[in-house]
């Protein structure tokens, strides 16, 4: 009876009872058929029930008993070989720990349903089409007036909820000196009822809290924020704070576990959508639309009802487009509406990190396979060493399956111990990785509960690993020939199975190393990508004012900063380059629209100098020049808008955004290209324009500004402590200005390579672990094969074989298998590289250096790992070998 059937018996007692009953019944029938009295036969057989119990117990207890015996014996075996067992457990623990950590991360980020009612009925309304620059894109951003119509159109079949993209907001419960930064999300008032969420304190929004634009100024705190900020004090409900120059009242606290709808971000305060300026604008896309489908309503029904609503809305809007190119209009009107499953929420971070995390998960799986192969090889070697014991067991009547069960119990012990150690590792590793997703000033925040999903995964993994590790040695055991083994004959098998496992290890090792090489190179290329300016020693102070302040206020603060010791020069800009902000528009030349989408940045005189962006033609801005009127453009701009002609004195125009008017600019200077948006794209055409704007009220003094960034270049070697002095200097100079953040340009630039850094770091780590484990595997297998063949080697040496011949003989198969593994790895690597192509930058997988390095490193490692066994083989003393047995 197979093990599987026995296990099945445990759970199928009913079926078993029926079988036993049937058998006893057939016994009685047989008795009657032979002429016995039915009553007498029944009496002789005794109580059916008692038999049934006795028989069933026999079946189950015998099995459980053997299982227990095997478990005890397996444990004893492991304790006998303490060092090898510890090595097996540790290497497996690393693999399993990584797997569990990876699962926790992937699950929390991508798969776990939101803790809301009907999460499986949750969809996101998205639109698919071609973006402004002709690229295919799917966008979930929606406009509020359209949302209102959409909601009415599917009323009764689906409830639509608006949830804004989360953003950082500043609020204060006391005075302006104690500003706190929070994650804020605007949500429809009826979101909480639709999700069937109950307040942890106070009350949650209802539809009535979300009817009139601009009111009411209520917020709901998240449970986490309530805990962190107020220690779960119930009196937090009713408190007021100031945010964006308005006073808000806390009306309640959302339930524990609900952290918003964006995995990777934990919302601190929820605000009704009506408090967002955008609710009245038809051209502001600032939120996602989630649809909660009623049971039984199909996705297509809802989609078909929403599509015409969007189409009609877009056609109305398109009538207002006067200046946009025709192609833009066509693209705008040919968008298609989609419903995407959103049961686990939606976030930009999810979209950005989905593929990297899946790739990391696959790499972890490979490391785990490498670790499993090691344990399997170890157990195979041990099983071979216990060859006689096994043969003895078979010859006194143990079924081979029983031996397999014995091995299974052993590997179960290893797997269980490894999963315990690995669990501890995963406990630490998952939050470690989460903290490294996203830039360090706004790291990903992810709830990582240790719930049944994680437990179940760990349990299944343990079972799977136990079975996989026991598989190879089981094959070995099933070949045991008791008669020969007991006669003392060594088996002549060359351990082909173990070599196959080594080949697998080499293959996966190559793939991880190959991938790691690609990611590390990508990171290096991106990190060393020339930015077009000098980032070192640049400090950026971003300041804001409650009331817009006139130029003298800004200039005074700027002047005070210049006299701080260690400061070389100071300039102002709307925002620093590469910090994620952007301002763009289509360019018109000679009153003709072009397809050029240029980026704009307002800068003060001296900006180019402070940033070290070389001016190649023309001049810098003068202090009295205001926006619009003059512009300094970069080379890409000259190339795309003026066809490379000398642009000095030429004019260009930018749409103002009202669809009719345009601003005019005269080019006064040309600078070298500098990175504006990110490190990956080609240099964007960029126009720098004066920091201050003409006063719309017609006054001669430029328009007051409520925010901007001071760009401060420090002298080389200035102490970091100066950054604090800079901050206080601004508020000392002008109390109206408040510094909301202080960063170095290097920090800002590094934020663009966080994902690549994470991938490079983790993939590199996995490659190193994989290499180490594979080395252990090679060492173990060679060592074992030398031990197995020492008699034969002894004979050869006695017959005059030279060390070189011995070495070749010992390693020829291993080299062959390693080469096969390498080839397989190369094939797998090239086959899968397309999947990661979007994560790479300026690195070609076909680049020979990408494949040669791992081949050399792995080959070198194998040689090193093989040395001890080789030395042992060559040094075998023929005399002592021939005396054995």
């Amino acid at each position, binding site marked *: *009876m197979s093990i599987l059937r026995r296990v099945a018996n445990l759970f199928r007692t009913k079926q078993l009872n029926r079988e036993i009953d049937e058998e006893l019944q057939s016994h009685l029938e*047989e008795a009657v058929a*032979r002429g016995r009295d039915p009553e007498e036969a029944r009496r*002789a057989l005794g109580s059916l029930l008692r038999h049934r119990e006795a028989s069933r117990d026999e079946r189950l207890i015998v099995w459980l008993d053997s299982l227990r015996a095997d478990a005890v014996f397996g444990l004893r075996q492991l304790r006998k070989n303490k060092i090898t067992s510890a090595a097996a457990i540790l290497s497996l623990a690393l693999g399993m720990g990584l797997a569990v950590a990876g699962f926790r991360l992937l699950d929390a980020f991508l798969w776990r349903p939101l803790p809301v009612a009907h999460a499986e009925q949750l969809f996101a309304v998205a639109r698919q089409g071609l973006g402004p620059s002709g690229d295919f894109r799917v966008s979930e951003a929606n406009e509020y007036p359209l949302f209102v119509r959409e909601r009415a159109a599917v009323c009764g079949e689906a409830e639509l909820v608006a949830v804004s993209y989360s953003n950082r907001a500043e609020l204060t419960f006391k005075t302006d000196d104690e500003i706190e930064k929070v994650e804020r999300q605007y949500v429809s008032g009826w979101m909480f009822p639709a999700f069937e969420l109950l307040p942890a304190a106070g009350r949650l929004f209802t539809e009535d809290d979300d009817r009139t634009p601009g009111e009411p100024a209520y917020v709901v705190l998240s449970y986490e924020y309530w805990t962190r900020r107020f220690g779960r004090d119930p009196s937090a409900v009713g408190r007021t704070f100031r945010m964006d120059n308005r006073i808000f009242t806390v009306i309640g606290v959302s339930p524990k576990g609900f952290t918003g709808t964006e995995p990777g971000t934990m919302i601190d305060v929820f605000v009704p959508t009506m408090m967002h300026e955008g609710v009245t604008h038809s051209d502001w896309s600032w939120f996602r639309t989630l649809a909660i489908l009623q049971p039984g309503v199909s996705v297509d029904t809802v989609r078909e009802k929403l599509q015409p609503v969007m189409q009609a809305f877009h056609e109305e809007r398109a009538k207002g487009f006067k200046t946009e190119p025709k192609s833009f209009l066509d693209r705008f009107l040919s968008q298609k509406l989609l419903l995407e499953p959103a049961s686990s929420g939606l976030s930009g971070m999810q979209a950005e990190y989905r593929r990297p995390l899946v790739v990391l998960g696959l790499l972890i799986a490979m490391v785990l396979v490498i670790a499993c192969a090691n344990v399997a090889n170890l157990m195979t070697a041990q099983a071979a060493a216990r060859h006689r014991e096994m043969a003895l067991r078979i*010859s006194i009547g143990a079924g081979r399956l029983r031996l397999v069960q014995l091995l299974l119990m052993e590997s179960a012990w290893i797997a269980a111990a490894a999963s315990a150690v690995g669990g501890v590792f995963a406990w630490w590793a998952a939050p470690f990785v989460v903290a490294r997703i996203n830039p360090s000033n706004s790291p990903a925040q992810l709830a990582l509960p240790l719930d049944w999903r994680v437990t179940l995964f760990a349990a299944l993994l343990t079972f799977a690993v136990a079975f996989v590790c026991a598989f190879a040695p089981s094959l070995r055991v099933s070949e045991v020939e008791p008669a020969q083994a007991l006669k003392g004959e060594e088996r002549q098998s060359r351990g082909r199975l173990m070599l196959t496992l080594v080949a697998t290890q080499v293959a996966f090792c190559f793939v991880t190393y190959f991938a790691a090489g690609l990611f590390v190179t990508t990171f290096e290329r991106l990190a060393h990508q020339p930015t077009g300016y000098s980032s070192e020693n640049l400090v950026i102070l971003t300041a804001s004012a409650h009331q817009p302040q006139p130029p003298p206020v800004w200039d005074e603060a700027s002047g005070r900063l210049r006299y701080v010791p260690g400061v070389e020069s100071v300039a102002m800009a709307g925002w620093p380059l590469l910090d994620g902000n952007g301002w763009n528009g289509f360019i018109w030349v000679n009153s003709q629209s072009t397809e050029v989408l240029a980026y704009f940045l307002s800068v003060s005189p001296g900006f180019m100098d402070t940033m070290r962006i070389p001016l190649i033609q023309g001049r810098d801005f003068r202090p009295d020049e205001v926006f619009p009127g003059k512009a300094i453009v970069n080379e890409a701009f000259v190339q795309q808008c003026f066809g490379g002609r000398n642009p000095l004195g030429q004019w260009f125009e930018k749409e103002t955004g009202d669809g009719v008017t345009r601003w005019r600019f005269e080019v006064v200077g040309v600078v070298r290209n500098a990175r504006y948006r990110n490190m990956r794209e080609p240099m964007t055409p960029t126009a720098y324009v004066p920091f201050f704007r003409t006063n719309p009220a017609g006054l001669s003094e430029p328009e007051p500004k409520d925010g901007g960034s001071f760009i401060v270049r420090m002298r080389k070697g200035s102490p970091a402590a100066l950054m604090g002095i800079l901050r206080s200097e601004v508020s000392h100079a002008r109390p109206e200005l408040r510094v909301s953040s202080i960063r170095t340009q290097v920090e800002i630039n590094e934020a663009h390579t966080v994902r690549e850094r994470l991938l490079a770091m983790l993939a590199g780590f996995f490659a190193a672990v994989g290499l180490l484990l594979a080395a252990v595997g090679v060492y173990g297998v060679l060592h074992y094969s030398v031990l197995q063949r020492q008699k034969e080697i002894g004979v050869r040496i006695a017959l005059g074989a030279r060390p070189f011949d011995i070495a070749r003989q010992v390693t020829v198969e291993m080299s062959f298998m390693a080469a096969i593994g390498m080839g397989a790895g190369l094939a797998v690597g090239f086959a899968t590289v397309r999947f990661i192509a979007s994560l790479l930058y300026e690195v070609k997988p076909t680049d020979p250096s990408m494949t040669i390095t791992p081949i050399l490193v792995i080959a070198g490692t194998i040689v090193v790992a093989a040395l001890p066994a080789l030395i042992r083989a060559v040094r075998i003393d023929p005399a002592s070998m021939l005396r054995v047995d």
Partner: protein
Amino acid sequence: MAPKPDTLQGSLDLLVLKILSRRSPLHGYAIMSAIQDISADTLRVEEGSLYPALHRMEESGWIRAQWITKENGRRARVYELTIGGKKQLGIEESRWKAVAAAVNRVLREA
């Protein structure tokens, strides 16, 4: 006089294995009848203890069972010896012989 069925304890396995080594497959009733017939009714298997014993031996891998349909259309569970069972039979047989020899010696020489 027939010995009490209890005295068969311990030798039931041996008898079943032996019977099955000669003619198999057999169902439970046939095994029981065979033991009775061959021993000329001296050995009687208690019907109630036969099936648990069969199931235990099946579990130990000495015998294996399968359902068949007999010519009269009835289903029956028949047993046959496995390789492990053959070895077990050898072990049990020699043990029995040793015990029997020892008992005989005691009877002879005491």
